[in-house]
């Protein structure tokens, strides 16, 4: 959030109330104001793709506003017509007719001579897991598999704690480099990877997933992602070569424990 920009826009908009602009000017000013807020008022800046979509929606809404009332639409039409027809706007019209093509030409020019932008990346962050995976030659059915230690949380908290501690050791020897001390995906290797590692503190990551999903992603890593997740920029290793099944389940326990999240459990329905 860039409060200053937002504040400035709000102040200007408030000031405009006293100027009583006509409907056309009003809509144009609102459009520009909202654009400024979206473009400069959000920190970090939102991607252009989203900005475009947002501004489209805003345009739609403003058009709806202007045309919703008969007198307002007439006001806009009159203003537009007057601009084209009335002699007093001759200079403004002439300027617009000259400047607009120049602006378009400039846009074309800068578009053609600008620095090349890397291709947009859109990958599926949470691809659906396969039904089953083979883990070190053993078939694991992801639909039914459960964390074998999860039950201990209720039945034997001491043993559970021991497993969490085991997971802690695994985490700090393997995962901390990328996922970070605070599990925010900000380990000291994180700046070298794109996309950056998952942020487990974000309630939209592990809290949305079942433990079996994490097992799959940990065991199979980036090479195990399905084709829909290409480009495989994920740097996540396939930990099945380093960690035992037990260690993976333990580190899953630890990740949930540290972030104070709960895994999603499959709901009993039907």
């Amino acid at each position, binding site marked *: 959030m860039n409060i200053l920009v937002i504040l400035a826009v709000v102040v200007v908009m408030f000031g405009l109330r006293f100027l009583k602009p006509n409907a056309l000017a009003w809509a144009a000013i609102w459009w520009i104001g909202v654009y400024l807020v979206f473009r400069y008022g959000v920190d970090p800046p939102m991607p252009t793709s989203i900005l475009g979509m947002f501004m489209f929606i805003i345009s739609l809404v403003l058009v709806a506003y202007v045309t919703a009332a008969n007198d307002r639409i007439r006001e806009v039409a009159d203003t*537009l*017509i*007057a601009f*084209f*027809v*009335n*002699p*007093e706007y001759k200079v403004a*019209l002439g300027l*617009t*007719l*000259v400047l*607009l*093509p*120049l602006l*378009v*030409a*400039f*846009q*074309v*020019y800068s578009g*053609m*001579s600008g*620095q*090349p*932008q*890397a*291709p947009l990346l859109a990958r599926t962050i949470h691809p659906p897991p396969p039904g089953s995976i083979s883990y070190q030659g053993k078939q694991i059915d992801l639909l039914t598999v459960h964390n074998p230690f999860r039950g201990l949380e209720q039945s034997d908290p001491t043993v559970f704690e021991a497993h969490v501690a085991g997971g*802690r*050791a695994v985490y*700090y*020897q*393997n995962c*901390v*480099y*990328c996922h*970070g*001390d*605070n599990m*925010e995906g*900000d*380990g*000291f*290797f994180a*700046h*070298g*990877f*794109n996309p950056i590692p998952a942020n487990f503190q974000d309630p939209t990551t592990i809290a949305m997933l079942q433990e079996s999903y994490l097992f799959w992603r940990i065991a199979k*890593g*980036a*090479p195990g992602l399905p*084709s829909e997740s*290409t*480009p*495989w*920029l994920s*740097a996540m*290793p*396939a930990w099945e070569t380093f960690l035992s099944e037990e260690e993976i389940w333990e580190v899953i326990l630890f990740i949930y424990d*540290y972030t104070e999240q709960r895994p999603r459990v499959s709901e009993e329905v039907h």
Partner: protein
Amino acid sequence: MTTISVSAMTKKLVSAMTTLSVSAMILASTSMFVLVETVSAQNVDLGTEAQREAGRQIYELKCAHCHASDGAGDPVMSTLLRPAPRDFTASTFKFRTTASGELPSDEDIKQSIRNGMPYTAMPPWPSLSEKEVTNLMYFIKTFSTDFAGVFGEVVPLEMPDPPGMSDESITRGREVYVENQCADCHGDQGRGDGKSAPTLEDSWNYPIRAADLTKRWAFRGGSSRSDIFRTFTTGLDGSPMPSFDIQPEEDQWNLVDYVYSLSRDNAGYGTVVTAHTVSDPIDLSAGAASFDGIKPVLFPIVGQIIEPGRAFFPGVNAVEVRALVSPSTVSFMLQWNDMSADRAGKTGPSLPAPDREAEPDTSITYADAVAIQFPTDVSAGAEQPYFIFGDRKLSADIWFADLATSSATHYVGSGADRIEVSGPDLAMSATFDAGQWTVIFSRARTEENHAAFKEGTFVPIAFSVWDGFSRERGSRRGLTTWYYLYVDVAEKPSPVLPMMAWGFATLLLGLGTTFLVRRKFGNTESDRG
């Protein structure tokens, strides 16, 4: 009154210590101890029992896995981490506003917790509240009895506000740099390649590197001019970095300005390197001169913890890249800073490397090396091979330069364990100068071996760097994931025609609208107007 006299005395001692060895330092502190013995320690703030207990709980949860529950630095992690986690029981702290050999102030400890140390395992802790940081600080002070004693009462040195910076101050700073023999460790150009750099060890006998002064963003103690000032006036206790008392005082800031001038504000890592078009084939013998005038792109290098030989702390942390294409060849210039040119020994992308070498066989040495990586088939679209030398489905081209033999080999990898020589179709040249490697690759642009590098396309590109000094070889190395190489268009289509066309079309549209509107409403409107 007493406190002032102590600080004055300490200051004197400090100036004497710069020339003394570590043993002399201990001697000095003992003598200081004798001198200040009579001073009471009643002003030492150790916090309340509750605060320390609260700190301990945070410590157990967030710190103990590296620094150990007893504060001595976990032996397992300390072999993995470079630099090693601080041993709190030794009461030796690097970043202080207090004189060399003294304990840090409370604020110093809190600052270190808050800001962490960039490019080390110590992260910043913005998630901890001020209260939590304070409690943690109190708890950390319990690891050493020194904090409770007379030394606990510290007096921060006065840190003056930085004066203005000028070209003269930088020039003079360079002289100060030379006079004080900074180059012995930090190298002539400040790249951390001084002649004694490879031998440096910290107080616990772990190897330690002299800071690369050309990467200010990676300074452990912060990158502002005040931070630099503080670092060399107070020294970094526990490391070979002593404190310097440079006179006259202006020269202190001149030195700061020189160091500051060696690097830009931030790393500014890039994502796309553009291969610029030239008409003639690139002449390797011309060396770096061919790439004059091309803006380099810096890519971060991180460790590889996936394949056996995991490199948790690669010796190189960034590589600078430039690229050129001619109609028949494509060339890349890679530059990175290295403490020492390791020209003797073995290296190779598939040399086996163990995960951890407890007692490395020092009779075998390893040479520096570098590699560029492309997807073998760049037409495969969005799908890229796995960034560690490809996978079974999609292979990766590896352009490998062995800097011991100064030869380049072209490999094709379909997995880190399946790397095969593809051909000697690469040319390279390498030079090492003032702590910086410059390696130039050149290859023919041909269609049949997918090395066409079509104009106007984005080609995925990745890099690997091996630091022989850190015994890196095979999968043990620093690397990047995929970035992009943009192959510039030789003859850019002139924007004039489309510009004119669009502009003209807009003009026509405007005129047309005006005409239509006027024809339809003209009469009534003029009546109205």
